[in-house]
């Protein structure tokens, strides 16, 4: 029963990693951009949530109504103002510019909010639980997992059922021809980043309710998201969901053996999958 419990809790933890990963997966799928600052943007989302809850007095989940569009706007502005300039055949500019952005965000947050760990207060939601067949499940982890499935489903639907999704797929397949067909790729890229950061906002707020956070934790969140994307296979959104769950389960199983092994066993699971299946479990695009 203990092991079953660890697996179930790991699956729910994986939901959070799926939310970290979804934005990465989306922008890589649309514009082949890997954003090193992604983890710091998640932390930015958490801090925006904190500011909204403390100044307006909203419940953290209600703060999503403000933080999600705000992060979307930041994403659009960031893409059009900065990141579009880095796109091209050369790999270095996007990598180094987002790396610089990561340093700026981290130290900017440090300057504004200090290094003290912060946490969002979600009241009774934090400790509420339900018992299912002998297992006690936290309501917050269940909610997080629900958000993760909904986000993946929503992105999948957007990609394959809407005009915007068609534009995403078109610029992903061939930017120049998409441009000839009357799509403005700079605008499309901006929208993709806006959508990615909207998802990041959800990830940030759920992270901030679940654990305490400080400006330095962005790098670790980026790595978790990245591992989920690679485990699941590049460009496959449902694969990313599976990847996040595998990572979460690996971590809770590792923690069960020895608490010091939690993060390490997640990384090791990632490396093992990389060794056996270099393209991830369910690849759709070649890296």
């Amino acid at each position, binding site marked *: 029963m203990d092991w079953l419990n660890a697996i179930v809790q790991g699956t729910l933890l994986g939901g959070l990693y799926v939310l970290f990963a979804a934005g990465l997966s989306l922008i890589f799928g649309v514009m082949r*951009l*890997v954003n*090193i600052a992604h983890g710091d943007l998640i932390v930015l989302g958490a801090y925006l949530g904190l500011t909204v809850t403390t100044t307006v007095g909203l419940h953290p989940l209600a703060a999503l109504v403000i933080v999600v569009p705000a992060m979307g706007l930041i994403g659009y502005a960031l893409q059009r103002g*900065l990141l579009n*300039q*880095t796109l091209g055949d*050369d*790999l*270095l*500019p*996007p*990598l*180094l*510019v987002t*790396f*610089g*952005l*990561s*340093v*700026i965000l*981290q*130290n*900017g947050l*440090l*300057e504004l909010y200090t290094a003290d760990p912060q946490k969002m207060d979600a009241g009774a939601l934090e400790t509420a639980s339900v018992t299912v067949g002998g297992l006690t499940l936290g309501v917050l982890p269940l909610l997080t997992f629900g958000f993760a499935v909904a986000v993946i489903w929503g992105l999948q639907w957007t990609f394959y059922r809407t005009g915007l999704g068609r534009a995403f797929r078109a610029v992903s397949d061939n930017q120049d021809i998409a441009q000839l067909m009357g799509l403005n790729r700079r605008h499309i890229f901006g929208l993709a980043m806006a959508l990615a950061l909207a998802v990041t906002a959800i990830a940030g707020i759920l992270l901030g309710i679940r654990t305490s956070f400080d400006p330095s934790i962005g*790098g*670790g969140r*980026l*790595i978790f998201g*990245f*591992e989920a994307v*690679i485990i699941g296979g590049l460009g496959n959104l449902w694969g990313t969901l599976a990847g996040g769950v595998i990572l979460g389960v690996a971590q809770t199983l590792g923690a069960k053996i020895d608490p*010091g*092994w939690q*993060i*390490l066993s997640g*990384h*090791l699971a*990632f*490396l093992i999958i*990389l*060794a056996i299946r*270099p393209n991830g479990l369910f690849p759709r695009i070649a*890296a």
Partner: protein
Amino acid sequence: MSLQDYTVTRSSQAARVAAVLGALALIVLVCAPWWAGRADMRLMGELFLYLALASLWNLMAGYAGLVSVGQQAFVGFGGYVLFALTMFGGLHPLAAIGLAGLLGALVSMPVAVLIFRLRGAYFAIGTWVIAEVFRLGFAQISALGGGSGSSLPVAIVKSLASKRAMRESISYWLALGAAVLVVGCVYLFLRSRKGLALTAIRDNELAAASLGIDIWRAKFTVYVVTSALTAMIGALIFLQKLRISPDAAFSVNDWTAFVIFIVVIGGIGTIEGPIIGTLVFFALRETLADLGTIYLIVLGLVAIVMMLRAPKGIWGLVRSRFDLQLFPLGYRVIAPKPEKEA
């Protein structure tokens, strides 16, 4: 004018002048223990170690196209190997530094086989995962102090030299020697047949492969050599610091972010770039470091602006204007002086 009148040369006036000035500067620097104060020597020692790290990162990213954000894995590995071998193996620190390089090479081989499966930016984050695995792994070793780290025992420090002044001179010379060794190795490597292959890969991977260059092997060689030398530099860094902990040893800011800034600001893909970048970085640090986080924000901004406006860095700007090459790598054709003909 016939074809025979043209000459092909590698060297140039500027390169010869630079070589002479460089040799003079080196002599002055070797004599530093006799003219510089203790604080200056420490600062210069640190500068040389950063120069070595930057030159190595530049060789990987600028020439082999291996953009790593996980070189702290080998810096920390080298530091920990130094501590382990001197504390438990009873080795002399200098022997431990050499062995750190050897072990670094051995460890980097399976790592390379694994992460070379990732391309481009995913390779970059993959190297970061490796560094995290190293950090968490070393934090589990309780003999080395676990998560809180350990200090180098006095007896080992004294085995380097019994007098403090002598110890500081030795550690300064080691740092200077490491920088000269690394820059020299990179220069000679790039002039060799393998270096030519590497430059070809940098310019166009597909074309290089079609000319028969084994790209995977070339990159593998660079990764292993760079990792070994980075581990040796790491051992030197922590021989100076005398204290090691997982967070300091595997810090992404200290051993990768700063190094990337140095290379980007100086000029990626050139030997001169990291040298100029190191000087600029230390000048900025000495003047702005009191500002704390603002200083780091400025550094990030400078790197972004540099990457967007002048992707070849300061040295690229200089070279586009003056056609200079202080470390002659490329060949140039010299046309004969036009003769006055009727």
